C-alpha cells in the first residue's frame, strides 16, 4: 500500500516536473527568440562594435529545440547577408601581425577576424545540418541565399560544393533552389569575376561523370544560362591581327627612322623616358584596379567551354553505349534532351576538330530507332531533336564548308512516317520541318519531290495542326523547286521530267530513290474538302499555284507558327451552333456525372454532342431492332399458317377417304 502511494506520488512529481519543464521550456524559447531579435538588430545597426554578439547568436542556434535552431539560422543569414563586406578577407600574416599599427587598423583587424571565424562556424554548421533531413530545406535555402548574395567572399568553394550536390537531389524544392542559384551565378558574372563559373561547371562535369549520366535533366539545363564572348572560337584571328600589326609597325618604323636621323639625340632619349614611364603607370594602374585582364577572362571562358563540351560528349557517348550494349534491358537517358539543347545553343563556338565526332554521334543516335528490335531505341522526339541539332551545328559553321547532311534527311523522311500525335511532340516535328526543309537553300529535286509527296500523305492522316504545318512546308518547297510543280499536274508517270525512276515507290527509305517526281498530288484534292477552313483554303491555293502565277499575298508563316496557331484554335474552333448545344447540356445537366473541368469549352461541346449522338443512335438501333423482330415474327406467322393449312388439307383428305 505504502509503495503504491509512494509510486503514485512519484508519478505525480514526475508529471509535475514535466509540466514545469514544458512551461519553462516555452518561456525559455520566448526569451531566446527575443534575444535573437535584439542581437540581430544591434548588429545591423552597428556591426563594428557589436561583432561579438555573433558568437552568442551562434550559441543560441546550437540549441536542442527544432524551431529555435531554424530561427537562429534564419536570423544569422539575414545578418550575414547585410554585414559581409564586398571584398575577400585575408587574415594578416605573422609578419604583419608583428608590425606596429594604428588603433584603427587594429580595430579593423579584430573586426575582420571575428567576422571570419563566426562566418566559418556558420557555414560549417549549415553544411552539417544539410545532411539531416529535418533541417535540409532550411539549410539549403540559407546556403543558396549566401552563395547568391556574396559569391566573392571566402568559403565560396564549400558553399558551391553543397549547392552543386543539390542540383540533382530527389527533393523538388531543394533541386529548384539550387538550380536557380547556379543560374544566377552564371548570369551575374560581375559579382565574382568568372572564377565561380569555372568552378561550378567543373564540379557539375565531375558530378555527371560520377553518377554515370543518371541525373535529373535540370542539372544540365543550368548550362543554358551560360554565356560566352562572341569571339571565343576564333583565337587565331587576334594573333594574326597582332602579327600583321607588328609587321606594319616595323615597316613604318623602318620608313620613319631614316627620316628621324637628323633629329637630335636628346629628343629621342626623352621620348624613350616618357614612353617608359607611361608603361610603368599603366602597369601600376592595372595592378590597382579590379578590371579583368582580357586574356585572363578568355582563358577562364575557354576552360568553362571545354568542361561544358566534355560533359556533353560524355552524355552522348553514354547514350550511344547504352543503345549499343543493352539487350532488352530498359535504360533511361534523362540527360539527352538538355544536352542536345545545349549543343544547339553553343554550336557556333565548337572547335572544328570535334565537329566530325559530334556529327558521327548525332548520326548514330538519329538512326538508333530504326532497328527492328524494340528493346533499345530513342523516341521519335529525341531523334528529331538530334536531326535539328545537326542542322544547327552545320548552319553555324557554314564558313568552314557547306556540308549536305544526306543521312539526316533520310532519317527525317522515315521519322515523318513514324510520328504519332499523342505520343510525340508536334512542336519538335514542326521545328524539324522548318529547319531542315524551309531554311535550306538548295535541294536535290528528287529529294524535294519525295518530301512533298510524303508531307501531303502525312497531312491527310493527322489533325488540323499537323496538316497545316505540313502544308506550309509543302508550299514552301514547291515555291523553291520549280521542277517539283509537275506533281500538281495530272500526269502520272511524270513524263520526261521524272528523272531516272519511272514509278513512285511510297515505301522507299531514301528520298532520293523514291521516284516521287513521277507521282501526282491527289491528296490536295481531298484536303480542299477538309473540315477546317484554313486547311482547305491552303490546299486549294497550293493546287492552283501553277496556273494563277506569282501570288504576292503569300503569308510567310513558318510551320511552327502554323502548328501552334491551329493547336490553340482547335479548342475554340467549332461551327456556330455552340450556344444551342450548351443550353441543351444545361437541361440534361444532372444526368452527366462526369467531373467537368473548367478548362475548355471543347469538353463541354463533346459531352453535349455525345448526348445528342447517343440519343440518335439509340433511336436508330431501336428501329433496326424492331425491323428484325418484325421479320422474325412474320416468318413464324408464315410457318404456322402453312402448318395450319396442311392440317386442314390432311383432315379434308381423311374425310374423303372415309
Amino acid at each position, binding site marked *: 500500500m505504502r509503495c503504491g502511494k509512494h509510486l503514485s506520488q512519484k508519478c505525480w512529481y514526475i508529471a509535475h516536473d514535466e509540466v514545469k519543464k514544458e512551461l519553462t521550456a516555452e518561456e525559455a524559447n520566448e526569451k531566446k527568440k527575443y534575444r535573437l531579435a535584439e542581437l540581430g538588430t544591434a548588429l545591423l545597426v552597428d556591426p563594428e562594435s557589436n561583432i561579438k554578439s555573433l558568437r552568442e547568436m551562434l550559441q543560441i542556434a546550437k540549441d536542442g529545440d527544432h524551431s529555435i535552431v531554424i530561427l537562429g539560422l534564419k536570423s544569422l543569414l539575414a545578418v550575414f547577408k547585410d554585414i559581409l563586406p564586398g571584398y575577400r578577407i585575408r587574415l594578416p600574416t605573422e609578419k604583419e601581425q608583428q608590425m606596429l599599427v594604428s588603433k584603427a587598423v587594429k580595430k579593423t583587424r579584430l573586426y575582420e577576424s571575428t567576422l571570419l571565424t563566426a562566418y566559418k562556424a556558420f557555414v560549417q554548421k549549415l553544411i552539417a545540418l544539410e545532411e539531416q533531413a529535418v533541417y535540409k530545406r532550411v539549410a539549403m535555402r540559407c546556403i543558396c541565399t549566401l552563395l547568391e548574395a556574396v559569391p566573392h567572399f571566402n568559403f565560396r568553394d564549400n558553399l558551391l560544393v553543397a549547392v552543386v550536390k543539390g542540383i540533382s537531389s530527389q527533393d523538388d524544392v531543394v533541386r529548384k533552389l539550387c538550380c536557380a542559384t547556379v543560374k544566377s551565378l552564371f548570369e551575374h558574372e560581375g559579382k565574382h569575376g568568372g572564377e565561380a563559373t569555372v568552378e561550378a561547371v567543373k564540379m557539375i562535369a565531375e558530378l555527371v561523370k560520377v553518377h554515370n549520366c543518371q541525373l535529373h535533366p535540370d542539372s544540365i539545363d543550368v548550362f543554358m544560362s551560360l554565356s560566352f564572348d562572341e569571339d571565343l572560337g576564333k583565337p587565331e584571328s587576334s594573333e594574326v591581327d597582332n602579327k600583321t600589326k607588328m609587321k606594319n609597325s616595323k615597316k613604318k618604323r623602318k620608313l620613319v627612322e631614316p627620316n628621324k636621323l637628323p633629329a637630335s639625340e636628346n629628343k629621342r632619349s626623352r621620348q624613350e623616358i616618357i614612353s617608359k614611364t607611361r608603361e610603368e603607370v599603366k602597369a601600376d594602374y592595372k595592378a590597382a584596379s579590379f578590371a579583368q585582364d582580357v586574356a585572363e577572362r578568355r582563358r577562364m571562358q575557354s576552360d568553362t567551354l571545354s568542361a561544358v563540351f566534355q560533359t556533353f560528349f560524355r552524355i552522348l557517348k553514354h547514350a550511344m553505349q547504352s543503345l549499343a550494349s543493352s539487350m532488352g534491358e530498359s535504360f533511361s537517358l534523362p540527360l539527352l534532351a538538355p544536352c542536345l539543347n545545349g549543343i544547339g545553343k553553343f554550336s557556333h563556338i565548337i572547335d*572544328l576538330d570535334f*565537329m*566530325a565526332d559530334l*556529327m558521327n554521334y548525332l*548520326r548514330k543516335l538519329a538512326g538508333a530507332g530504326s532497328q527492328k528490335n524494340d528493346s533499345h531505341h530513342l523516341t521519335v522526339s529525341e531523334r528529331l531533336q538530334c536531326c535539328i541539332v545537326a542542322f544547327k551545328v552545320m548552319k553555324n559553321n557554314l564558313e*568552314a*564548308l*557547306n*556540308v*549536305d*547532311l*544526306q*543521312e539526316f534527311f533520310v532519317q527525317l523522311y522515315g521519322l515523318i512516317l513514324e510520328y504519332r500525335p499523342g505520343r510525340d511532340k508536334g512542336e519538335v516535328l514542326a521545328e524539324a520541318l522548318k529547319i531542315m526543309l524551309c531554311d535550306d537553300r*538548295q535541294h*536535290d*529535286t528528287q529529294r524535294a519531290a519525295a518530301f512533298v509527296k510524303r508531307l501531303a500523305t502525312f497531312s491527310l492522316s493527322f489533325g488540323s495542326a499537323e496538316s497545316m504545318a505540313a502544308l506550309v512546308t509543302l508550299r514552301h518547297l514547291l515555291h523553291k523547286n520549280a521542277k517539283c510543280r509537275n506533281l500538281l499536274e495530272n500526269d502520272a508517270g511524270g513524263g520526261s521530267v521524272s*528523272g*531516272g*525512276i*519511272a*514509278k513512285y515507290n511510297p515505301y522507299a527509305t*531514301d528520298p532520293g*530513290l523514291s521516284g516521287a517526281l513521277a507521282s501526282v498530288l491527289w491528296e490536295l484534292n481531298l484536303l480542299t474538302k477538309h473540315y477546317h477552313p484554313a486547311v482547305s483554303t491552303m490546299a486549294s491555293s497550293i493546287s492552283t499555284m501553277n496556273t494563277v502565277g506569282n501570288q504576292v499575298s503569300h503569308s510567310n508563316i513558318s510551320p511552327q507558327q502554323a502548328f501552334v496557331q491551329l493547336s490553340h484554335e482547335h479548342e475554340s474552333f467549332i461551327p456556330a451552333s455552340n450556344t444551342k448545344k450548351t443550353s441543351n447540356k444545361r437541361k440534361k445537366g444532372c444526368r452527366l456525372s462526369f467531373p467537368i473541368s473548367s478548362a475548355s469549352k471543347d469538353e463541354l461541346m463533346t459531352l453535349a454532342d455525345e448526348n445528342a449522338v447517343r440519343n440518335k443512335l439509340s433511336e436508330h438501333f431501336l428501329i433496326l431492332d424492331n425491323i428484325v423482330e418484325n421479320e422474325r415474327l412474320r416468318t413464324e406467322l408464315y410457318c404456322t399458317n402453312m402448318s395450319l393449312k396442311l392440317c386442314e388439307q390432311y383432315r379434308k383428305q381423311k374425310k374423303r377417304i372415309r
Partner: protein
Amino acid sequence: MRPLDENETTQVFEKLFKFVGSNLKNIVENPSHEGPDPNPGRYCFRLQKNRVYYVSESLVKRATNIKRENLVSLGTQIGKFTKTGKFQLTIQSLNLLAANAKHKVWLKPTSEMSFLYGNNVLKGGLGRITENINPNDGVVVFSMSDMPLGFGVAAKSTQDCRKMDPNGIVVIHQADIGEYLRMEDEL
C-alpha cells in the same frame, strides 16, 4: 555479245560500288518497263567488243537476232575493258551513277567550265559536299542546278576539306560531259 564471266563481273561491281555503295542493289534489280512483255524483266550486263553495256533483258532477247559483227551497241554503255584487262567507267554511265550516287559534290558556277575542260575540282570551286566522304571514294559532280557534270575520285575526306586552303584538290577528275565534244572519236 556475251554475258560477263566471274572475274569481269567482280571488277564491274567493285567499280560501281565505289560510287553507289549500297544502292548497287537498285541498279542490279531495277525492274525494266521496256518492251511488250507484261512481266517486267530486269537489267543485266553484257559485253560486246570490250565494252560493257547495261541492258534490259527484253532488249537482250531481241538483240540476239543481230549478227555479232553488225551489232554496234545496245542499251547504255557503262564502261570498257582496257587491253590489259582492267575495267574503267566511261562518261556514258553518268546518268546511272548520278541517280544512285552516295557521295555528291556541287560546283559553283564559276568553276563549272574548268571541270568540263578536264581539270580537277579545287576547294575554292566547291559549293556543297555530302558529309562522310572518305579518300578514294567515288564522287559524282553536279552543278548547282543539280545537273550531273561528271564523276571522279575524292582526294580528301570531308573533314579534311574543311581545313584545306582554297587551292587544294578535292576531287580528281575521271570523266565529264565535255568529253562528248572533246573526245568524240574515242567514245
